[in-house]
Structure formats: structure tokens, C-alpha cells
């Protein structure tokens, strides 16, 4: 709290006047010879508690009333940033969330949340007498001393970016900075409280809190929460990108915030190598996932482009960038003895006429030589490998390859990655093993990008082998035994499917389950060849290597060269072609709850300022003298009420007896 007329605070001393008068009055007593002493002593004993309290309250009301009047006269202003406990501050460390989600506007025609909070901080700093301001922005994570709060809004280090924020790191940096700083300091965290930026489950929070608490002078923590309503907004981002011959398959997701009950038609602009086309898509519901097929020019070795939707509440989430390299076939290897199962697997891995796929079958004994890093996927329908075969397969998995294991058909005690197959089991006579439960959001049996489910219920098996061991089940038989399980191995994934596409086992070969599952796994395996073209802002591949320079290739928007490292777009980094997109988590809507915030800032005695996000409250400080005048009125009224004489008058003369 600051005062516009601090000289008038001297009148606070007048609050002692009632107390002084009271004390003087007590000393100015007269002496009187008294006869009825016994009643006086009794009365004095009985009135000691309640009457003294009442007298004390009256005195307190008088003193507080005068004090409140003096405070009102001094024209106090209270800063929302400082609260009531504020005072002189030497250093303010501002942790500014510059993530893409901070560019959302609280309403049409208003500034973004980042711009609002920057201005509020600037004004609050002026109210506080311009203490030292140190900015640690979420994009660079480096402390930077700001010479004047007025410059804060003009700096490139406070400008918009397409990056994400990492608050555990920011708070740790603030603690590190404050170890070399002296005097009273405060840490202000300006954020839209997006849960992905705060990372509440991150183990580094404990270390950050410990660092803050170990400082010689613990700083006050103030969270400027930029939450609340926003203008209508939609965001677009790429779920995946894969070249298939002369086509680029882009898996796209559009999310809508706010009122998503009505269908809405919106133009989708596609720019490919400088050529723009526009389609119309209809949005219904909160999200729309679809696959965009972009025809590539014949013989095109590499290229880039972007997809965009019209400008709306957040200008930073309306574009998704892509880049592609030369076409390469998605190769798969089938390790299985010749037979019906191997044939079905070959059909599922490379169906005739479906894109640029090819597959090869080898006998189990020859697998070690056939496995190579160019493969997208290995389909293994044989006993688990051992020896050099197992080592080759493990290396393939670790490098990002996908391996699908099918039952060997016979009891086999061999283990791989600590998993093994159960002995073959037949369904009871006249019955089938039925698939009743599978993961619709994850795994090879997930629903299609348009929401179409895989026809898993059509699968019927008369024979099965159950994968046993520590793996994540993604589909289960009717009796709860797993049908598909998954085990992550470094960059790759091992899948275990509990029946064979053979008529003596199941109808898995009917393509309802096998084809989409195998194609998805192959696609995932092949993505690692195309994924190198699409990265996120701030990720390791998006950074310059030694000797590289950064050059932006796309023509979307108005790039800021000073923030090129933190902006999405298509870049050439040395010889590398990269489409850099904002991190997908920036489009999520999950907000940190108060309870979670209490958890991550536990023990820091932080202050949460919810009103920081209100656009209609442009300042963080308010003139509060009226509140003090109300307090004066309150204290005077209370004093008057306490001084009111009692309604019942006590008469010392006893009532005359009727007799």
C-alpha cells in the first residue's frame, strides 16, 4: 500500500489522543471518605470483566476511527500485485510466460493476455517506485535486467513466441538469480496457468521450492493469473505427416475453444511450395481430426508449406507448417514360416495398390541378416528370438523400429524383453474367444482420425496364446486375458498380438482388425523417416548445430527475426529442412487448478492475483481512501452503540413489600 499524501500520515499519532485522555482522566480522581465500602468492593469485583472489555472496545473504536481518518486523508492506493502486505521492494523478478497460448485475447478488439500483463506490470512498477526489474522470459529462460519498466513492452524478450513455457525451470532460474541479489525481492509469475506449462507432476518443483526457501531473505511469490474468458478461437496443428509416393498425408486437428455447439464452416488454406489453395471445412463440436492429402508435384524431391485457418482470438495458433523429403517406401519384414499366416501378414503389410509399401518374408533362422535400420516394421510370427537374432531385433527396436510379435503356434518358454507366450489354448467347443474391450484412443486399434472405430467385435478366435509379462494391454478378450499388449523399448515399440491370421486360429486374416493394425504400426515405424522434417519450437532438433545458420523459407505472417528461434515456420538450418511448429500442448485447454497450484508452490506462501487477467481492470493498483472513510464511519457507529446507556435502570431502593 502506498500513499499519495504520505505527510498526512503524521496524523496517525492522533490515534493516541483518546488513550491519553483516558489515562489522564484516571489520574484525575478525587478522594472521598466513603461508608458503604462493602458494596463498592463487591461491585468492583463483579464489573471487572465485561465492563472493562466494553470500555476497552470503546477506546479501541475511538483510536481506530481517528487512525482510519488519518489514513484516508493520506490517500492510500493499494496495488493488487502487492496486496496489503506490500512495502518497499528492492528487486522484482518477473517470470513472463511468452508461450503461444498467452497470445489469446480476453475479448474481441482487446490486446493479448501477454500484452495486458506486461502493461500492468509496467504500471505496478511505477506505483512501487520503480524498483529493480529483472525479466526471465519463458522462451529464452535467461535473466535480463530491464533498465526501465516503460521499455518492457518494447523488448523482443517480452514479445510473442510460439514456444511453450517451463515454469519449474523458470522458478529455479529465479532462485539462482536471487542467490546473488540482496535486499527485499519478489518473484512475479505472469501466466495463463496452462497446466502443460506448469508441469505440476515435474519432480523439479521440489528442488525449485527448496532453492527459494533456502535464500537468506525469502522472496514473496505473486502469481498473476491471466485466466478468464477469451475471444472465440480455433487452433490448428499437425498430428502427423507422411509422404506416400507423390502424396503427402497430413493428419490435422482443429480445436475450438468457447461455444462449440453450432457447426461452423471455415476456410482451410493450404500453401505448398508457394502455391495456395483454399478448401472449406465444417467444424462441429470441440475438435475435428481429418487427414489432408496434398498432391505433390511430380518428381518433387522435397518441399514445404503450411495449413492455415482465418485469424481469430489467438493469432499464433492459426497455422501448421510442414516439410517433406524424397519419397521412400515403407518396408516391412515378415519373419515366419511359409503358410497361411505368413500370407495374410504379407497382404496386411503391403496390400496390392495401397501406396508405396513393400514387404519381404524370411524364415526365422535368417532373420538376423534381414533386419536392417531401413525397415519400418518387423512382423514376427515365430518363437521368440535368442542369441544374435534377439540382439539384432533389440537394436532395431531401440533405434525406433516397430516389431509385432504373433504366437509361435507351439508351447514356447523362450522370453524376449521378459515376456513370453502362454501355451496355446482352444476355445470351449462351439464357442469363440470374442474381443470385447480395446483402447479407442491409443494403439493400433484406436478409432480412425474421423472417429470411425475398428471392427474389433468381428474378431472371433478358436485358438490363442496370451502374451505374459509386464506390458500394457490395449485390447482384451471377453475373459479379460490380453489380446494386444505393448512394450516400449527406447525409441521403438514391441507389440504382442495373441492369435494368428490362420483359419485354425481365428478370422484375424479377414482384414477387419489385422489390416488397420498392421498398417498403423508400419506407418508409425515409417514416420521416423519423415518425422525428421517436422519438429516443435524449442525442441533439440530445432536448435542450430555448430556452423549452421537459420533461414526462414515460408511466407506466413510477419516473422520477427529477433525471435526466429522461438517462432514457428519453415526453416533451413544449414543443410536441414525443418517445419517448426508450436508444441501441441499449447493448444490444450487444461488450466491449473487452485489445489494443484497450492501443491506446486507449497511452502512459498504465494499470493494468487486472479484479477490480473481481467481486461476491464487495466491497473493493478486502486485508490482505496473510500474504504478508510467507511471504516471511520464503522468505528464511530460502533463507539456510539457501545456508549449507549443500558435500557434497564437499576434502582438501589428495594421495592416496598406488599405488607
Amino acid at each position, binding site marked *: 500500500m502506498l500513499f499519495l499524501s504520505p505527510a498526512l500520515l503524521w496524523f496517525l499519532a492522533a490515534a493516541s489522543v483518546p488513550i491519553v485522555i483516558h489515562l489522564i*482522566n*484516571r489520574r*484525575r*480522581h*478525587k*478522594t*472521598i*471518605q*466513603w*461508608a*458503604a*465500602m*462493602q*458494596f*463498592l*468492593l*463487591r*461491585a*468492583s469485583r*463483579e*464489573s471487572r470483566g465485561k*465492563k*472493562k472489555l466494553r*470500555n476497552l472496545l470503546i477506546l479501541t473504536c475511538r483510536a481506530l476511527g481517528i487512525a482510519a481518518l488519518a489514513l484516508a486523508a493520506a490517500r492510500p492506493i493499494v496495488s493488487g500485485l502487492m496486496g496489503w502486505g506490500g512495502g518497499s521492494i528492492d528487486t522484482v523478478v518477473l517470470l513472463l510466460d511468452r508461450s503461444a497460448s498467452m497470445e489469446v485475447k480476453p475479448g474481441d478488439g482487446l490486446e493479448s493476455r501477454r500484452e495486458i500483463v506486461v502493461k500492468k506490470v509496467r504500471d505496478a512498477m511505477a506505483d512501487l517506485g520503480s524498483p529493480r526489474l529483472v525479466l526471465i522470459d519463458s522462451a529464452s529462460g535467461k535473466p535480463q535486467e530491464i533498465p526501465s519498466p516503460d521499455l518492457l513492452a518494447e523488448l523482443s524478450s517480452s514479445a510473442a513466441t510460439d514456444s511453450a513455457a517451463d515454469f519449474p525451470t523458470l522458478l529455479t532460474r529465479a532462485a539462482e538469480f536471487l542467490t546473488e541479489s540482496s535486499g527485499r525481492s519478489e518473484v512475479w509469475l505472469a501466466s495463463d496457468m496452462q497446466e502443460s506449462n506448469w508441469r505440476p507432476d515435474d519432480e523439479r518443483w521440489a528442488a525449485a521450492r527448496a532453492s527459494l526457501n533456502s535464500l537468506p531473505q525469502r522472496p514473496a511469490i505473486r502469481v498473476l493469473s491471466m485466466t478468464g474468458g477469451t475471444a472465440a478461437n480455433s487452433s490448428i496443428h499437425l498430428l502427423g505427416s507422411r509422404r506416400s509416393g507423390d502424396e503427402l498425408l497430413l493428419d490435422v486437428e482443429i480445436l475450438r475453444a468457447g461455444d462449440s455447439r453450432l457447426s461452423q464452416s471455415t476456410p482451410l488454406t493450404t500453401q505448398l511450395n508457394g502455391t495456395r489453395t483454399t478448401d472449406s471445412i465444417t467444424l462441429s463440436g470441440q475438435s475435428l481430426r481429418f487427414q489432408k492429402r496434398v498432391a505433390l508435384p511430380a518428381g518433387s524431391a522435397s518441399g514445404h508449406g503450411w495449413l492455415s485457418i482465418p485469424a481469430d482470438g489467438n493469432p499464433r495458433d492459426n497455422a501448421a507448417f510442414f516439410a517433406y523429403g524424397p519419397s521412400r517406401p515403407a518396408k516391412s519384414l515378415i519373419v515366419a514360416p511359409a503358410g497361411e499366416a505368413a500370407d495374410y501378414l504379407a497382404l496386411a503389410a503391403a496390400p496390392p495398390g495401397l501406396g508405396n509399401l513393400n514387404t519381404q518374408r524370411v524364415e526365422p533362422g535368417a532373420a538376423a541378416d534381414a533386419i536392417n535400420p531401413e525397415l519400418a516394421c518387423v512382423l514376427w510370427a515365430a518363437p521368440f528370438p535368442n542369441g544374435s537374432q534377439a540382439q539384432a531385433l533389440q537394436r532395431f527396436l531401440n533405434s525406433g523400429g516397430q516389431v509385432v510379435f504373433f504366437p509361435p503356434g507351439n508351447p514356447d518358454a523362450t522370453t524376449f524383453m521378459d515376456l513370453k507366450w502362454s501355451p496355446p489354448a482352444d476355445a470351449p467347443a462351439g464357442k469363440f474367444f470374442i474381443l470385447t474391450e480395446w483402447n479407442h484412443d491409443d494403439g493400433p486399434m484406436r478409432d480412425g482420425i474421423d472417429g470411425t472405430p475398428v471392427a474389433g467385435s468381428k474378431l472371433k478366435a478358436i485358438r490363442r496364446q496370451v502374451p505374459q509379462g509386464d506390458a500394457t494391454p490395449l485390447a482384451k478378450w471377453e475373459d479379460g486375458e490380453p489380446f494386444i499388449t505393448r512394450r516400449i523399448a527406447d525409441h521403438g515399440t514391441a507389440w504382442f498380438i495373441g492369435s494368428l491370421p490362420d483359419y485354425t486360429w481365428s478370422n484375424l486374416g479377414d482384414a477387419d482388425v489385422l489390416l488397420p493394425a498392421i498398417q498403423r504400426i508400419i506407418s508409425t515405424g515409417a514416420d521416423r523417416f519423415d518425422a525428421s522434417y517436422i519438429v516443435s519450437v524449442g525442441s533439440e532438433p530445432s536448435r542450430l548445430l555448430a556452423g549452421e545458420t537459420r533461414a526462414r523459407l515460408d511466407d506466413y505472417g510477419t516473422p520477427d527475426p529477433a525471435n526466429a528461434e522461438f517462432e514457428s515456420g519453415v526453416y533451413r538450418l544449414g543443410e536441414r529442412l525443418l517445419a517448426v511448429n508450436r508444441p501441441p500442448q499449447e493448444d490444450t485447454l487444461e488450466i491449473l487448478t487452485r489445489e494443484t497450484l497450492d501443491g506446486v508452490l507449497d511452502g512459498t506462501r504465494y499470493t494468487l492475483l486472479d484479477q490480473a487477467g481481467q481486461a476491464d481492470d487495466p491497473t493493478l493498483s486502486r485508490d482505496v481512501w473510500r474504504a478508510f472513510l467507511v471504516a471511520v464511519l464503522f468505528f464511530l457507529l460502533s463507539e456510539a452503540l457501545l456508549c449507549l446507556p*443500558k435500557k434497564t435502570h*437499576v*434502582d*438501589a*431502593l*428495594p421495592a416496598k*413489600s406488599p*405488607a
Partner: protein
Amino acid sequence: MKYDFLDNDLLSRLGSLPIEARVPMMGNVAGKHRSPHRGSSVEFAEYRKYVPGDDTRRLDWKAFARSDRFYIKEFEADTNLRAYFVVDASGSMNFAGKGESKIQYARRIAASLAYLLVNQGDAAGLSICTDKLHLEVPPSRRAAHLERFFSTLGKLEPSGETGLIQALHTISEKIGQRAFVVILSDFFTDLAPLGEALQHLRYRKHDISVFHLMDPLEIGFEFDRPHRFVDLEDGTSIVAEPNLIADEYKTALRDFLAGVRAKCHDASADYQLVTTDTPLEPLLRDFLTARLPKSKH
């Protein structure tokens, strides 16, 4: 008169009012008050049957002629009255708010009533009590005796704590015959022993009158600033804000006054709560009038 507590005009105005006893008195000389003994006065009392041994001269022959039975005709015996004035001389009686002190007021009452009593042929005695002193002036009906009575009253200087309870017990034991006992005190003492002392007087069949003397300031307790209150009896002191404790004080005082009244009522005493700002003449006139037999009203 040389005593300032005697008012000639007042005494002459009250002279026409007799002081009557409410119970029959036993005196050693003839007087104007009823006696419990039957005598040969002119005022008929009752008939009673003759029993052997009675004086045959007192037989009512006319009644014998009418009823053929022997009856003795009895008459009221009149005797004189002996009054004892018991004056509390404790320090608290010295208290004077804005007017005269309680002891001054007690002097005026005792002296006036004693004068009227002696003037109508009755005897008046004085008993002055403190915790250390018990002064007595024996009752006498001689006019010269009044000088001693007034002199003792005039020299009275209250101090110390009250000795009223002991004085009342002493008087109860000491006075052999029924008497008129007038007590003048503020009764700042414990109520239970006071009740026992009054009952003792009642047991001896004395006619008790109580003048409970209080100062108006003691009852009103109206002060405008803190005071140091110093006890008149033992000198202890307390600083208090009267406005804060007035209610509790008045409640305690009211309970005390009601207690004294109840004790007097139990002892069939004639109780009067008197503040020292009360004019004496109407007080005494009402007191004397109330004591008159119904037929003389």
C-alpha cells in the same frame, strides 16, 4: 436551647402528639401506657370467672344478679414507658454527602423523641455503641435527666467499626422490663447476626423501632469522574470509575436494604428507611401518628 440538634419550633409543633407504645408496657409508676397487668383503673378491660382467692371486693354484683354467676370485673392498668435510644457510633455514621451526616441526623431524631417522651412523663435512656465503646445513659423520667442525655449525644464522635450487634444483645439482657427500643443506624454489618440481635429483642417483648439512616449519595451513587474511595471505618481505599460499577453497586445495595427490611419485619420491628435529606418534622409526625391506637386517629 444550647444544643443545635434540638429545634424548639419543631418540638412545640409535635408536642401535641403523644408517643404511644405498640405493646403493653411494664412500668413501676402509673402512666398513660397500657400494662399487661390488670389493675383498678377506670378503663374496663374484661370479665373473668371468679376463682377462690380472688378479692371479693372486685366481684361484680350486678352481673351476679343478672346471671347468678360470680364474675370479677377487670380494668386496664396504666403504667409509664421506658425508651432506649440505641445510636450506632461507628465511623460510617460520619458520612455526609451534600448535607448533614448520618450521625447528626440520628442526634436530631433521638433528642427530639427523648424530649417528647420525658415531656409526657416517660423515661428515656441512651445507648451508644462502637466496636470499642458502649456508653449508656440509663432511662429516667426526670426533666433534669434530659440535660445528661443531650450532653452525651452532643459529645458523640463516631469512629471505628460498628458494635451495634453486641449492644443490642446487651440491652436485651439488661433491660428487665418491656421497653421501647429505638435503633438509629446505617446497619453496615452482617445481616445474619443483626437478625439474631433483633430476634433477641423481640424475645424480650420489647417494642422495637428502627431508623435505617442512609445518605442520598450512598443510594444514588452519582459521580462524574473516577474517585478514590476511602473507608470511614478501617481506612482502606479503592480507585474506581463509578459509571462503570454503578449498576453492580446499586444491585448490591438494594439486596442489602431488602435484607435489613426483612430482618426487621421478622422481628416485628417498626422499620423506616430514612435518607438524611428527609425533613425531620414530617418524618417524626408520620412516625408518631402511625403509632397512635386506631381509636385515637
